[in-house]
C-alpha cells in the first residue's frame, strides 16, 4: 500500500486537508512531515501543500525552496516517485527548478477564490491516472499569484512535449495558454494551482478533487 508524505512549512495551511483526503477518505497512510526533516525514506509520493510557506515573503515559494527538506524532495523526483505541488506547493516546485515557469500576480491584481472549470489535457499523470483526456472538472482556486508565465520557447516546449496536464476553461488569473497544471518530462513531478483538497466530498460543492487523489493512489500503486 503506498505511503504518502505531506510537507508542512511555517505558513502552509492545507496539509491537513491533503492528509484527510488521502488517509481518512481514501484510507492510505499519510504522514505530515516538518520542513526541517532531511529524509523522505519509505514514502512513495510527497505532496507540497497550499498555503503561504514562510509567509510568501519576497515571492511565493522563494524561501521555502531552501527549506532543509527540499533536497530530499529533489531526490524523490529524481528516483521517479511522485512529487505533487498544489498552489503554493506548485510555486515552490518552480522556484526549486523542478518545474518550469514562474507565477506572476493575477492579471486582475486581486486574490481569486472561486470554483473554476478545468479540462484534463493529459491522462496517465500522477493526478490524472484514472481520468480521461477531455474530462472536465470543477475545482476551486484560491491564489493571488497564479498567472503562469514562461517565455515563448518554454511554452512551445511545454505544448510540444505534451506537459500541460490541466487547462482552465475560464482562465481566472491570466495564465499563459490557460495553463493550470503541468508535469515534468519524466511525468512524475506535477504542479497545479487549483485545490483538489478543497472539494473531495459532495458537501463541499463537488467531489471532483477526490478523483485527483484517487489518481495519485492509482499512479503510485502501478509503479
Amino acid at each position, binding site marked *: 500500500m503506498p505511503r504518502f508524505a505531506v510537507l508542512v512549512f511555517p505558513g502552509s495551511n492545507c496539509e491537513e486537508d491533503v492528509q484527510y483526503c488521502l488517509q481518512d477518505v481514501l484510507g492510505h497512510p499519510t504522514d505530515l512531515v516538518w520542513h526541517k526533516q532531511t529524509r523522505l525514506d519509505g514514502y512513495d509520493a510527497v505532496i507540497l501543500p497550499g498555503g503561504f510557506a514562510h509567509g510568501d515573503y519576497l515571492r511565493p515559494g*522563494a*524561501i521555502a525552496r531552501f527549506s532543509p527538506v527540499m533536497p530530499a524532495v529533489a531526490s524523490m523526483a529524481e528516483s521517479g516517485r511522485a512529487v505533487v505541488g498544489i498552489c503554493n506547493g506548485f510555486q515552490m516546485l518552480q522556484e526549486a527548478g523542478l518545474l518550469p515557469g*514562474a507565477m*506572476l*500576480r*493575477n*492579471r486582475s491584481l486581486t486574490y481569486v477564490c472561486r470554483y473554476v472549470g478545468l479540462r484534463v489535457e493529459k491522462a496517465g499523470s500522477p493526478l490524472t491516472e484514472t481520468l480521461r483526456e477531455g474530462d472536465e472538472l470543477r475545482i476551486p482556486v484560491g491564489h493571488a499569484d497564479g498567472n503562469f508565465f514562461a517565455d515563448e520557447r518554454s511554452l512551445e516546449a511545454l505544448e510540444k512535449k505534451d506537459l500541460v496536464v490541466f487547462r482552465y476553461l475560464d482562465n481566472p488569473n*491570466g495564465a499563459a495558454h490557460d495553463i493550470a497544471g503541468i508535469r515534468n518530462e519524466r511525468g512524475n513531478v506535477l504542479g497545479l494551482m487549483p485545490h483538489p483538497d478543497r472539494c473531495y466530498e459532495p458537501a463541499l460543492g463537488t467531489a471532483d478533487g477526490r478523483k485527483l487523489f484517487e489518481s495519485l493512489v492509482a499512479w503510485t500503486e502501478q509503479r
Partner: protein
Amino acid sequence: MKANIIVRLKPAVHDPQGETISNALKQLGYEQAVSVRQGKFFELSLDTDSREEAQRLAQEVARRLLANPVLEVFEVEVQG
C-alpha cells in the same frame, strides 16, 4: 559595506501592477507618464571591508534568492 540591489521584470514580462500604477497616474492628470514598470529595491549591509567580496556576495544573494531568473533581471551596486 553596503550594496544596493534592484530587481526588475524582464522587458517581455507583463507587469499588471505597473500598468495599474500608470493608469492611476493618468487619472491624476500625468498624461506624460506613458508607462510604469514596477520593481524591487534591496539595501544589503555586509560585514566585510572588501569591495570585491561585497560585490561577489551581493551578486550571489541576488542570483540565488532575490531575483527569479525566469521573470526578472537584477543590478548590483556596491557603495563606499
